């Protein structure tokens, strides 16, 4: 067994025994399981109203829900990944980085013949495996729920799309988990280490996407298409903030994975999510000094 896998296994074991990550994981899985059901209930309710309206002769238009895509119900999961999944990933990352400091075991680990880079990479690998298992479970539940709603198992194409969505979700969550590790390594107090990435998450998920739309009140208030803007402060504001709006890019990429034909797939959004994760991993693994892991006990 290599050092890398030893640390990764330890990470998995510690996460399995710790109640806080367990609670977050169970909550995430529960929300994923419920999300497709919520979509189905919404559909059923609206369709019932439609049939009533149709029977009373108020419309002769076809029910728009009759032609929805098979993976329509998976769209709700996207929201829960952004809102709950990312917070779960941050908490897992922070807990992992703080574990040795809280348990005062950092010195025991760092007096072993293991390189700091290997130690950190092993931890990230453990978190990545854990998140992969959580996402896989979530996708299996989504597949089963949608199959039940549709009255039969999903076909090959929607299953492949669901798997691709799972992969994208995993990359997205890993990015936030690594951000949590980064905060845990560089911030000594646990509450601050949790708070800082949570605030950063709120900025990239809520504030940055709003900057563009809030700066365009017409777009915010009215569902009308804006004339294309290629100059001016709003254009540049949007130009700068959109690559940083990780949550919005994930939603766009997920929508593409679930519905769009390959020719219309939003590659740029998927690339933004992937680059976010890669940058976070590189910063943590390559640039973290051993002294940071010791918590400055002798500083």
């Amino acid at each position: 067994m290599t050092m890398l896998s030893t640390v990764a296994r330890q990470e998995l074991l510690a996460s399995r025994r710790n109640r806080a990550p367990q609670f977050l994981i169970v909550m995430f899985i529960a929300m994923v399981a419920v999300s497709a059901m919520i979509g189905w209930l919404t559909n059923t309710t609206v369709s019932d109203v439609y049939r009533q309206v149709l029977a009373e002769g108020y419309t002769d238009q076809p029910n728009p829900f009759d032609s929805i895509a098979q993976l329509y119900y998976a769209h709700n999961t996207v929201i829960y990944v952004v809102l709950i999944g990312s917070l779960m990933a941050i908490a897992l990352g922070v807990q992992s980085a703080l574990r040795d400091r809280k348990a005062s075991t950092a010195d025991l680990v760092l007096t072993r013949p293991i390189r700091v880079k290997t130690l950190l990479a092993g931890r990230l690998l453990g978190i990545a495996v854990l998140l992969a298992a959580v996402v896989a479970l979530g996708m299996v539940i989504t597949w089963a729920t949608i199959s039940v709603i549709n009255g039969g198992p999903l076909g090959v194409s929607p299953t492949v799309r669901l798997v691709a969505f799972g992969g994208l979700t995993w990359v997205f969550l890993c990015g936030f988990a690594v951000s949590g590790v980064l905060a845990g390594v560089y911030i000594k107090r646990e509450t601050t280490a949790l708070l800082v990435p949570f605030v950063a998450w709120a900025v990239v998920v809520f504030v940055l996407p709003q900057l563009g739309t809030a700066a365009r009140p017409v777009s915010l208030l009215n569902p009308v298409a804006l004339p294309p803007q290629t100059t001016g402060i709003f254009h540049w504001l949007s130009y700068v903030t959109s690559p940083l709006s990780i949550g919005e890019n994930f939603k766009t990429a997920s929508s593409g994975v679930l519905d769009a034909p390959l020719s219309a797939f939003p590659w740029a959004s998927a690339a933004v999510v992937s680059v976010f994760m890669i940058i976070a991993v590189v910063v943590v693994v390559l640039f973290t000094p051993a002294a940071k892991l010791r918590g400055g006990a002798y500083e």
Partner: protein
Amino acid sequence: MTSFAIATHGLTHRYGSHTVLDELELEVPTGEIFGLLGHNGAGKTTTVCILTTLLEATDGTARVAGFDIRTAPARVRSQIGYVPENVQFYDDLTLMENLRFFARLSGIAKPDAPIERTLEFLKFEGHESERLGTFSKGMRQRVGLAQAMVHEPEVLFLDEPTSGLDPEGVRLLRETVVRLNAEAGTTIFMNTHLLSEVTKTCTSIGILRAGKLVHHDSLAGTLGAYPSEDALERAYFSSGTPVA
């Protein structure tokens, strides 16, 4: 020719403008139990942290188990065991899970047999599946020794090993250290501020005061120079001439 498990030359460490360790010159022959005496803040823990490669010295050099701490820190780490003061573990994991992790980090691919041998040596069998969170201070200290010696290191560093232990715990630890040194030939470097501890356990003694080594001799030599514990205590607390 004497081989030295630990040899330092001009080892110095500063935190800002404060010099914690001042040109330490120390040679500990292989197979000794060396006790480094000093009151709080004398620089004992800093010395151990530098020798175990946890801290990088501001100046000077040192070799541990034949390897330079600056140029071959990984080789040094593979030859040492370390028990910090108030040793802690992953409380949610069992004794076996904790020891497996540290043994594997020390390069032992199949750790169960070495762990069993170590626990047998420490007379600590029967707790393998218990979580560390339930262990007393004395039990934790023995687990600390177990994780430090499972890979049979050449040099074992103990930082204030009896801190917080009851008399029975102190006696057990002392017996274990002496037996480990006698049976496995492990060189032991022990930090302590307890005079009685070094005179009962160690084969050679150093006294560190304000970062300077003011005395270094064998136990017999030390007891010859300071025939009573009072005399040793005076050397420990009063100013003295640093050893050459």
